[in-house]
């Protein structure tokens, strides 16, 4: 194994492809990802910023989640997931190839666009999908460079690609024309979702998503991430200024005020200032009373952040059921789950494939 090093990922890909190696090129950083190489040719790439083959096929409804999971269970160990889906008649070879090609180039952009990143090459590593397509590494690199250029021609602000998408409150023109993908993006942008989240949610390719977002930015329909950062300190200073003129009821307001800097990603720095001039009702800042929570923490009755609600992915924990326990009666009686739904689908698809072969 090549030790982890910081290097241009594209150079290493050229090198291992030139040596006709087999393995996985793992690129760190944000968004990072991996490119899988089989005897010097690229067979697949994946990145958290680009929906993979499974997400594309299931979120579009092309495959039932259960069908995809079955193929994963059966084929992962032998790296034949792709071939299994075709053999079982769920996909045509053409669909599989087009889907893999699309998602490979899509992910390759996110993996290889970075100039410098930590890069690992894991020799002999293969992807569970199995080799479906074989792409020349030089073609992948050329296309990545071209895609970077295309985006800059639309709107040269790479911050748009990673920052949460915030539609503008007021459109800059009387009449706005949107394409269908742009409409989908604006409808689902809630001010929190990043372009990667939107791509996963909508089952759209990651590159197509940021391409549309750059177009929206060029039209002035989403807020530019670069512009929002200087606004941050203004908000914070405003809150502090008000603090000096507002009387004793301030502590409760202070408990709320961190919500402003949290949005701006500056959770720590402004807060000491907020305590620099305490209202007369409070003890001096050097001695925080035991019952007054520090500004970063919620009121003392609640657990600290990180325990439950640290991020969108961490939902509050529910009580665990014992393994093998039955559902409570009222729930079990209420819904009658369809039995063997996936099996029926598999069977029908095989019958259809067989009938088609007879034609």
């Amino acid at each position, binding site marked *: 194994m090549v030790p982890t090093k910081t290097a241009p990922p594209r150079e290493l890909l050229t090198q291992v492809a030139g040596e006709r190696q087999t393995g996985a090129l793992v690129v760190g950083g944000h968004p990072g990802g991996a490119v899988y190489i089989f005897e010097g040719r690229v067979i697949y790439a994946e990145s958290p910023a680009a*929906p993979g083959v499974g997400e*594309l*096929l299931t979120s*579009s*409804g*092309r495959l039932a989640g259960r069908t995809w999971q079955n193929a994963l269970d059966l084929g992962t160990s032998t790296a034949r997931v792709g071939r299994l889906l*075709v053999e079982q008649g769920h996909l*045509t*070879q*053409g*669909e599989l*190839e*087009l*889907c893999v*090609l*699309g998602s490979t*180039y899509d992910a390759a952009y996110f993996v290889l666009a970075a100039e410098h990143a930590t890069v690992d090459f894991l020799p002999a590593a293969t992807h569970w999908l199995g080799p479906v397509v074989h792409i020349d590494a030089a073609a992948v690199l050329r*296309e990545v460079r*071209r*895609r970077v250029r*295309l985006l800059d021609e639309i709107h040269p602000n790479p911050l748009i690609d990673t920052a949460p998408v915030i539609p503008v409150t007021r459109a800059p023109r009387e009449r706005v024309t949107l*394409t269908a993908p742009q409409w989908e993006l604006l409808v689902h942008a809630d001010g929190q979702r990043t372009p990667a989240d939107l791509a996963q949610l*909508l*089952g*759209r*390719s990651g*590159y*197509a998503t940021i*391409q549309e977002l750059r177009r929206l930015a060029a039209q002035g329909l989403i807020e530019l991430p670069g512009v929002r950062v200087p606004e941050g300190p203004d908000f914070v200073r405003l809150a502090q200024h008000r603090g000096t003129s507002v009387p004793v009821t301030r502590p409760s307001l202070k408990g709320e005020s961190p919500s402003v800097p949290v949005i701006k990603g500056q959770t720590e720095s402004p807060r000491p200032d907020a305590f620099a001039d305490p209202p007369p009702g409070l003890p001096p800042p050097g001695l925080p009373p035991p019952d007054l929570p520090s500004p970063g923490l919620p009121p003392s009755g609640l657990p600290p952040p990180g325990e439950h609600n640290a991020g969108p992915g961490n939902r509050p924990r529910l009580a665990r059921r014992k393994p093998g326990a039955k559902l409570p009666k009222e729930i079990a009686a209420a819904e009658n789950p369809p039995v063997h739904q996936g099996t029926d689908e598999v069977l029908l698809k095989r019958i259809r494939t067989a009938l*088609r072969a007879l034609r």
Partner: protein
Amino acid sequence: MPGVDHCLQEAMTIPGAVGASIVDYTTGFPVATTGAAPNADHEAAAAGTADVVQAANSRSLFVSAIPHDLLEDLIITTAGGYHLLRIVQTEFDSRLVLYVWLDRVNGNLAVARRKMQRLTDELIAT
């Protein structure tokens, strides 16, 4: 099971076919190519193809207001040849178009269009 390469081979059996490719029209990238391309440059041809499809799809009168009245074919004729574009409708997100370049003397527009329809249907048979 016909794959992408098989589809392109079949496209080349269309009478008068000189070259064929499958182009991703969001990026103007040729996903697969075979035969000749105008000016011997498949990538430039793909970029041009993408512009044409984008123009027809988003900025013109041809975009129908009726749901699911989607763009099917684009046919461009020149003095020397026919250029046929057929949208490949996949259920998953991909924006692909099958492009076939026909020689004007040997090519037959109607035959080629029918054949391309069958090829894209077979590629994505659902």
